[in-house]
């Protein structure tokens, strides 16, 4: 098949960008979307032009590195699918496809289709973990975890941190990403001691990073390649509220024995 691409080209973070049109010819339906871009890039290279920069690594839908706005839809037309797993059979001969980077104020463009998502890492730094150091953990079976809880934790933990939720949200909110981590740990007994503090800190960081607020549009859930449920956001809000009311101030006195 042949398709026309309108691709966002931007030479660097502070440079101006624009759409450039390319023809992708003799594309097989079995190709993945990124393999189609590989073909276009090979042609550009042969002509001595700069290939289109786009992020990717695993190419099997798990690392979260890829992510393109394909004709206005995060990760393209197929439900529950990352860009790298999208195949050209989802398109028809003669289609014009617009390809853009994630657009969000918290994700500055680095070049062409690559953006800086380090803000997501900083949300995790704010509290997206259980504070245990290596060594001395109790036996793995010491605390039984009801299967439904383990399953619910796993559903939320499936997030790949790609940022599609942010890109799809009209407000550019990272609520689904943040809520997924809060829910994953919040369902497990190991996550309880820091549960409310975690919610307070991660939400505060999200605000600091210039992500927008959540007004429950629900676009995030529709765009999520791992189908993380928007219910996690309700959980996050509950934990946040509970934390703001009941979480104790941290004690300032340090030890001093001996």
């Amino acid at each position, binding site marked *: 098949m042949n398709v026309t691409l309108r691709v966002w080209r931007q030479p660097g973070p502070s440079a101006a960008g624009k759409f450039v049109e390319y023809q992708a010819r003799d594309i097989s339906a079995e190709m993945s979307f990124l393999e189609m871009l590989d073909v276009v890039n090979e042609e550009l290279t042969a002509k001595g032009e700069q290939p289109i920069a786009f992020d990717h690594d*695993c190419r099997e839908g798990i690392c979260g590195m890829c992510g393109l706005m394909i004709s206005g839809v995060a990760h393209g037309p197929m439900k529950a699918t990352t860009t790298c*797993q999208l195949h050209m059979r989802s398109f028809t001969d003669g289609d014009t496809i617009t390809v853009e980077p994630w657009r969000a104020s918290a994700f500055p463009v680095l*070049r062409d289709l*690559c953006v800086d998502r380090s803000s997501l890492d900083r949300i995790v*730094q704010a509290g997206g973990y259980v504070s245990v150091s290596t060594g001395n953990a109790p036996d793995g079976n010491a605390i*039984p975890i009801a299967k439904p809880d383990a399953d619910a*934790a*796993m559903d939320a933990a499936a997030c790949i941190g790609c940022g599609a939720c942010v890109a799809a949200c009209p407000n550019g909110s990272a609520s689904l990403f943040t809520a997924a981590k809060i829910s994953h740990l919040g369902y497990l007994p190991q996550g309880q001691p820091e549960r409310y503090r975690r919610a307070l800190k991660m939400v505060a960081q999200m605000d600091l990073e210039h992500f927008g607020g959540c007004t429950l549009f629900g676009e995030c859930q529709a765009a999520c390649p791992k189908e993380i449920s928007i219910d996690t956001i309700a959980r996050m809000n509950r934990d946040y509220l509970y934390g703001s009311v009941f979480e104790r101030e941290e004690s300032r006195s340090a030890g001093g024995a001996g």
Partner: protein
Amino acid sequence: MELKSNIPGGPIAEKWDKHKFEMKLVNPANKRKYHVLVVGSGLAGASAAATMSELGYNVSCYCFQDSPRRAHSIAAQGGINAAKNYQNDGDSIQRLFYDTVKGGDFRAREANVYRLAQISVNIIDQCVAQGVPFAREYGGLLANRSFGGAQVSRTFYARGQTGQQLLLGAYQALEKEIAKGGVTMYPRTEMLDLIVVDGRARGIVTRNLVTGKIETHLGDAVVLATGGYGNVFYLSTNAKGSNTTAIWRAYKRGAAFGNPCYTQIHPTCIPQSGDYQSKLTLMSESLRNDGRVWVPKQAGDTRAPHEIPEAERDYYLERKYPSYGNLSPRDIASRAAKEACDSGRGVGPGGLGVYLDFRDAINRLGRDKIEERYGNLFQMYERITDEDPYKVPMRIYPAVHYTMGGLWVDYNLMSTIPGLHVLGEANFSDHGANRLGASALMQGLADGYFVIPYTIGNYLAGQKLEPVSKDHPEVRAVEREVEERTRRLLGIKGKRSVQSFHRELGKVMWEYCGMARNAQGLQEALARIPALREEFWENLNVPGSGEELNQSLEQAGRVADFLELGELMCRDALHREESCGGHFRTEHQTEDGEAKRDDEHFTYVAAWEYAGEGKTPILNKESLEFENVHLATRSYK
């Protein structure tokens, strides 16, 4: 070069405890003064960086992806082994040790493997404490499944996303330490060379992949946890960015390379569908718990699978290896698939495929159960092939998956360059000539959480390290070499793309150094690879400049190193005149086509030493002693 394995004395079960007691310690107040550079943020690197920071060391960590959470470990599907014996099916540290030594076809170091089996139980505990959502039974206890090469159920898993969940556990521990200020993280940063001063590893030279800036980072010790080099074959199950650059540069600075030819070809991958293909996708080995592998009995049978009656199917693994059946180890299952296809009984386009059939399991357990166990894998398969594996059997074919070879390390995980430590898939240590399923995750985390945090202290406490400045002539020299190399790659301005060279190299490697090897083919490859390398340096085309985000340049550097590594792999494969594990030399096989080892001449680790540009590398040997597992012919019949 002298290879000192530094294996502690005493009975095997007591070595590690004894060694832990005997190792030197760094006083807690002094740890902060030591700066450790960890390259890699996969299971091995992230766990090492986080744990060393918890102990008080000042750590810097590097990865080429935009976040440490995206390291290739994220893609591991099936599970992680541990000798917990929760199933009460007779597992023990001794048995995991035995299975791993045997699975590796008696080409691994016993003491390391024993330690790995011992530590395996702590890993599960640690991960549970971090909140890794392992699969559970209704009673709330941890669930297990079986993997190849084992007759017990010792594999822990989180659906089909075990690597993801383990890595997120390690990543979160790393982020916790970054927040505390113990670790400085450098994402989108690629190590391009190693700095050795006065014979010790003291730093690295990196390229910032966004700005293109070449930078020097100095410290007291360097830890490489940069993963495997399977992408030398171009098509593999590895992520696109997986590369050999870090360990290859270290090799050229004096670190011996152990067993480069030991490659694992995984039996269950989705067959290639066209020339444009950029990577191959693994279908987890765990599928062989319930899927049955078969081909038609008759060569050239083109009927649809459901039209082939039971009596005309050959469940060849069950037939040839009745005690392990579909769970035979990977090297054996891959070769059997190749044999079936070579005899004209392969299925699908080009006859390069065999069936992995879930019909019987679905009839026995119901679709729901199968969906619960493998739902995401089935979905992934359907995405790629447009076929529904609940209805038609999967088609699978072997693909390059893992490299057992890597930088040679001693018992302390230190290479032949003092101060340079190597963890995870990047080292050669624990899997011999074949790795068992679910053992790479175990090894990465064992190295990072439980071994290096001890052994690094022993190294640092035993040295008097003078401060090194960025103006040190050796530092400046390495920096200049890196800059020069980048300039050279950009300056060729030839006609061919990096990708085309990589593809061609991959074809040569797969053809001559893949599932079956022989002297003639390897010699052919040894003639073709240098010629291709020469063309690369004359006719490569890398658009753009070095002072910007330039993905072609990144790839070019990696492929340049693969073009050198490929040659060493073929050389190693040629010299090893025996078959063992994943290394199958067609000249050395038994009458029924099984691998034939030559213990008298080859019970050693081949540790190759760089001898300089254009010179033949030097072969050093670490001989392997088997005192606890009896050297025997490996049989899964």
